[in-house]
């Protein structure tokens, strides 16, 4: 019996298959002209045996990945202080670093850890920041990302996004009968990759809830497009919409209670909102063209969406309780899949730039479009919650890879994954500390 059961189980979808090895490797392909030189001195370790994690290396990698900092090579460190008192600032000025981080990782007798660090202005010798963060063994890595966030914010004035997460869809054996689709969630540095959901049928359009605890997505597991909402921590999921026809393009409202979505109840796609708990459906658009890819404004009062009512796809906006849609893109033949920047001033869109589908940002006040990416078939832009970066999918060597570009277009990175076809990245909101 058990054997049969496990066969059935094995044949079925596996939600939350648990940690997988981090597959994303990040390559900075273009950075700012003069990244700020910083030194992240190897942390001291106060505990038995070896330190469980190299805090300084992770912090340095995070800061470098932002494109705004260049971390000093460890071989170029003239000293290795672990407390502020041990620092000889001249030894750091001489190797031309502007800021310097020293710290210690400590283990308490009960097995928990504390990360203690100080950030200094190397030129003035002043402490800019000093923290002691207690973390559990399981949260060591996220605690280290938190340290990176604090340092980044102190040095740039912008909150760091190192402790956020990224969701995406990966496909193996794409286009074959035995294809496997996976909904994956990983830390913003590509590590700690976890498979949330796996299916032999396509998975699409992951969308984070505003609290970062749930993801809505489209799954074809029953042969048609249906919308599911899955809770990250437990892996529990509900089927939020499985109405006849297409159920697609889910997007959480800012209060997390409603979804904007696309249904094809009368044979073509229109935008609806759905009160998830009460299953109250409200029709927003009613037009014989394709209306899809809705996304909410931060105040929940406006929906931006794609419509080809003019003959080709363009971005429109409409009140979230309905009304008359207003077209907002006029530049180019193809503008689709809008995502709003956290400050509400820009829309990231897919824009057809002389035959290539590229990521562009639309300045909502001025109406101007700036192309940020340089691929042939770039898609699925998603803003980091601090608004500094946009992650998107591009194609390289015949398969999908993820890339990021700074919102000003200056820093570009490619996140390569080990041979998998990856697509539809979605950057989480800021996550509350656990």
């Amino acid at each position, binding site marked *: 019996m058990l054997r049969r059961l496990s066969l059935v189980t094995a044949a079925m979808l596996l939600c939350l298959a648990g940690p997988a090895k981090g597959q994303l490797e990040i390559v900075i392909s273009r950075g700012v002209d003069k990244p700020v030189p910083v030194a992240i001195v190897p942390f001291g370790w106060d505990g038995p045996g070896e330190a469980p994690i190299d805090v300084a290396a992770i912090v340095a990698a995070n800061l470098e990945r932002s494109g705004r900092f260049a971390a000093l090579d460890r*071989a*170029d460190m*003239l*000293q290795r202080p672990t407390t502020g008192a*041990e620092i*000889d600032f*001249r*030894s750091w*000025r*001489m*190797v*031309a670093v502007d800021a310097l981080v020293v710290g210690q990782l400590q283990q308490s007798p009960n097995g928990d850890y504390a990360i203690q660090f100080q950030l200094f202005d190397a030129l003035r010798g002043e402490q800019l920041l000093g923290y002691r963060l207690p973390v559990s063994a399981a949260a060591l890595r996220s605690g280290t990302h938190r340290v990176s966030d604090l340092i980044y914010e102190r040095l740039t004035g912008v909150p760091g996004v190192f402790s956020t997460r990224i969701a995406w869809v990966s496909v193996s054996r794409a286009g074959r009968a035995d294809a496997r689709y996976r909904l994956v969630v990983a830390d913003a540095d590509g590590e700690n990759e976890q498979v949330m959901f796996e299916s032999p049928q396509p998975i699409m359009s992951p969308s984070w809830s505003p609290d970062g605890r749930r993801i809505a997505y489209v799954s074809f597991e029953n042969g048609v497009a249906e919308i599911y909402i899955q809770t990250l921590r437990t892996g529990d999921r509900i089927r939020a919409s499985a109405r006849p026809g297409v159920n697609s393009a889910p997007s959480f409202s800012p209060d997390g209670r409603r979804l904007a979505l696309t249904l094809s109840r009368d044979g073509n796609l229109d935008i609806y909102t759905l009160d998830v708990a009460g299953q109250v459906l409200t029709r927003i658009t009613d037009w014989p063209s394709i209306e899809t890819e809705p996304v909410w404004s931060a105040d929940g009062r406006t929906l931006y969406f794609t419509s080809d009512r003019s003959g080709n796809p363009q971005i429109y906006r409409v009140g979230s309780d309905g009304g008359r849609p207003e077209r907002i893109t006029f530049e180019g033949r193809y503008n689709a899949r809008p995502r709003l920047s956290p400050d509400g001033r820009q829309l990231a869109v897919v824009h057809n730039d002389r035959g290539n589908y590229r990521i562009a940002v639309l300045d909502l006040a001025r109406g101007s479009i700036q192309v940020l990416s340089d691929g042939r078939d770039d898609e699925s832009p998603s803003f980091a919650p601090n608004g500094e970066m946009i992650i998107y999918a591009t194609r390289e060597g015949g398969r999908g890879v993820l890339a990021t570009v700074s919102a000003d277009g200056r820093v570009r990175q490619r996140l390569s994954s080990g041979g998998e076809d990856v697509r539809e990245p979605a950057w989480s909101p800021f996550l509350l500390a656990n």
Partner: protein
Amino acid sequence: MARVRKRRLMGEINVVPYIDVMLVLLVIFMVTAPLLTQGIEVDLPKAASAPLDQPDELEPLIVSVDADGRLYLNAGDDQDLPVEAEVLRDRVAIVLGRVPETPVLIKADQSVAYGAVVAAMVLLQDAGAARVGFLTDPPPPTGRR
């Protein structure tokens, strides 16, 4: 190739490095000490020289040679303790690698044997210093110690 050459230099330290250092790679200048209070305290030679024209705000590397010929460096840990020649060379090379225009100064006690100073210069040359300055005290014999 370069390695072989270095080894030969070290072997003939009495004559060749002097020529090599003086004529090929090193520009030597003298600096009046009061400007610089860093490094280990040594009894500097007395000589009239132009004040140091420091390149804009770059802090100089100062190699001190005490009366016993021991070396000190004003960078890294334990700056008041003597440092091994190799360590000193590595540290100077790191700094010059990051900031090539960093001034490099020798602050040798006037009683130090001439050979020890030359050895320090060779070491600095090896570390990539193209210019080495000598610190001196101003001539009046009442000058500070």
